[in-house]
């Protein structure tokens, strides 16, 4: 029976793509046979736990700033004492366990024992790639159907928002593998149009929010919450410029909380935060927040904003699921009227079903 392979090669720890892979992968698992795999360096099947552990955040950036008050499971790491590292590791484990419980498939992967013996996709199988994969051309030649889950089509379309190495890989991948891709899946009509112009057969699906776990935590009441990647594509540089202007012209500004994974080309943004001591204490960085932290922040923030022009639009779904409006960039698909009718209760099972239906067509 043809199988679905979920390829998480290149999906960084704690990234939005990792959360998407975990959510979508487990939802797909309830509907069909799925094997998680990764190129290390050849494509290898992985145990399912890899999805949960990949969602764990990497170490925090060292900003040489006194840590803020602890915020829930992913407690910020203060000075790297042995005890602190132990405590941090414990909370990481707790986060992974909590997440694993939450997203555990309702039925275990039926074909797990079979796929463990199968080294990789074979003719008739479908390979779902979240990131450009160097083996894809080889699999296409073997009759494997390639589907690209374009979690970050915006960056794909803007090489100057990637590191030079990633940009080179993307260019090579576009030249060699893109013509072999059967279907590209994006989460924004704008990206779908752009990818169609590049020759991909692309569909745009509505994503869903990452489900928070059940614990409510201390938060930043009345803050301006900026959700999304800390990066050039995430527009953090522009956001800090705007914030500095507000600091000059406005009294009693609320705190700005930057909550998101640290992405590409963020060195100078982090340097600015460091140089200015987080803009006179008016900015707080929560790098690689857990869904629980985001949910908690959304519950009490004054306003949520998502300036990013890249990614799969997670911020808007998280905000809608928490019952909060979110100011997004014009690029973001939330500006599209038809998306406003999508219920905020949409979950990943809907997304998985839509995806399988698209395959069938």
């Amino acid at each position: 029976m043809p199988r679905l392979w979920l390829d998480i090669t290149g999906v960084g720890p704690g990234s939005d793509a990792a959360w998407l892979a975990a959510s979508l992968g487990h939802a797909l698992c309830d509907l069909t046979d799925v094997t998680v795999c990764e190129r290390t360096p050849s494509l290898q099947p992985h145990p399912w736990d890899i999805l949960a552990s990949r969602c764990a955040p990497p170490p925090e950036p060292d900003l040489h700033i006194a840590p803020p008050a602890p915020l829930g499971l992913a407690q910020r790491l203060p000075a790297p004492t042995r005890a602190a590292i132990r405590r941090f590791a414990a909370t990481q484990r707790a986060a992974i366990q909590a997440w694993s419980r939450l997203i555990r498939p309702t039925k275990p992967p039926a074909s797990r024992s079979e796929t463990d013996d199968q080294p990789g996709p074979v003719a008739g199988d479908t390979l779902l790639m979240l990131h450009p994969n160097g083996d894809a051309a080889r699999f296409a030649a073997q009759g494997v159907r390639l589907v690209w889950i374009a979690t970050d089509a915006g960056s794909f379309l803007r090489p100057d928002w990637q590191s030079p190495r990633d940009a080179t890989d993307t260019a090579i991948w576009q030249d060699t593998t893109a013509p072999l891709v059967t279907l590209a899946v994006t989460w924004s009509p704008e990206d779908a149009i752009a990818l169609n112009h590049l020759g991909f057969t692309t569909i745009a699906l509505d994503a869903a929010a990452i489900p928070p776990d059940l614990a409510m935590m201390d938060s930043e009441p009345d803050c301006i919450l900026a959700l999304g990647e800390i990066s050039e594509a995430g527009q953090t540089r522009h956001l800090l410029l705007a914030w500095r202007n507000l600091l000059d012209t406005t009294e009693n500004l609320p705190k700005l909380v930057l909550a998101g994974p640290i992405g590409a080309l963020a060195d100078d943004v982090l340097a600015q935060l460091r140089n200015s001591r987080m803009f006179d204490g008016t900015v707080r960085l929560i790098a690689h927040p857990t869904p629980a932290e985001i949910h908690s922040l959304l519950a009490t923030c004054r306003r949520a904003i998502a300036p990013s022009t890249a990614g799969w639009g997670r911020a808007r779904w998280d905000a809608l699921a928490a019952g909060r409006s979110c100011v997004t960039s014009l690029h973001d698909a939330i500006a599209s009227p038809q998306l406003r009718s999508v219920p905020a209760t949409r979950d990943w099972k809907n997304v998985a079903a839509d995806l399988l239906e698209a395959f069938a067509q």
Partner: protein
Amino acid sequence: MTLWIDVSDLFGHAGAFRRPSGIQRVIFELGRALTETSTPKIGFIRHSSRLTYAEVPWPDIVALFSSLSDDATPPTVTPTRPLRLQLEAFRALLAIPASLRPPRRTAAAPLQPDDTLLILGAGWSDSGQVARLARLRQQTGLRIALLVYDIIPLMRPEWTDPSNAARFQSWFDGMLGITDRLLAISAWTARDIAIHRRRLGLPEIHIPLVRLGDGFSHAPPQTEAHHGIDGAFALIVSTIELRKNHAFLLDLWQALLARHGPAAIPKLVFAGRPGPLSHDLMQRLEASANLRGHIILLPSASDAEIAALYQGCSFTVFLSLYEGWGLPVAESLCFGKPCIASSATSVPEVGGDLVQIIDPRDLDAAIFCLEALLNDPAGLAAWQNAILRDFRPTPWLHTADTLLAGLA
């Protein structure tokens, strides 16, 4: 009464660098203009030991500055070298003019209580300056005047390394305590100083403005070099750093290329070396192959090459986010070239009606402005003609007169 100008910074800079920066050029041009004024008496001093200042003849300063501007390599002495190399260095030291050597057992300058000492240099890089000047002021009773270019490290600490920002603050706050007259090169810088004084609880004071002269007398002949760039191009002459907003220009050119294609868009030349907080931008340029060759980096262009670039470009852009003045705008006008300049901080003070001002954060406005310019070659030519007809460079003599009036 004598107006003394501290040129220690000029000599310190010459010992470490081969080319003058903007501040050294200002010291020289202003010094030269002041020597041409009839009153008061002008003298130049540099600190010769920890506590004393020695007088420097003006011809020595001219010789020093000429050697810098001519790209000559000043001989240096490195005491840790082997004996043979030390001897060679010693011979080289003997070969250079006496004025360029470190002063030794020099007689102290004849400073009088009714004299004024004008500080024009980058004193924040000299950790002992404030204490030295405080002692000098106490011993002689002279007045100290400080010309302030900008206080960006205090206003925008995020763009400065924390140690440099701390050093600058220590220097500037120290200078505020011993300075009898503050002058600023722009209304924006005067405004920033007033804000900072309020933060410190200091009383409001009048800060006279001293508009810098346009152009430099030691600019090299403009026909010596060729820029070597094919086709039309726009130009920005500036260190590449976050504050100068090159990333915005990259976004702007990216948008123009996406809309109109490479054939319709001129190349963009970044003439300047990478400076602070430019790492991400350089990565972006590398990742996009300099926007597929549409951006040209010239990190080490000589003065002659810069002049050739100014002469050869269609127009210049300077969309900096924060400045104390805006030298590239003035330079552009001196070369008769239209400039699209930033509306931020002091930049609009430089060019008046002869430059086009846009918000350096508004990408849509910038796209609109550039598209209008590129679609109207006749308009661009008319703009250039208006500059050639109407632009009147501020002479350094005028700057000197304003300075003297501000000190009075």
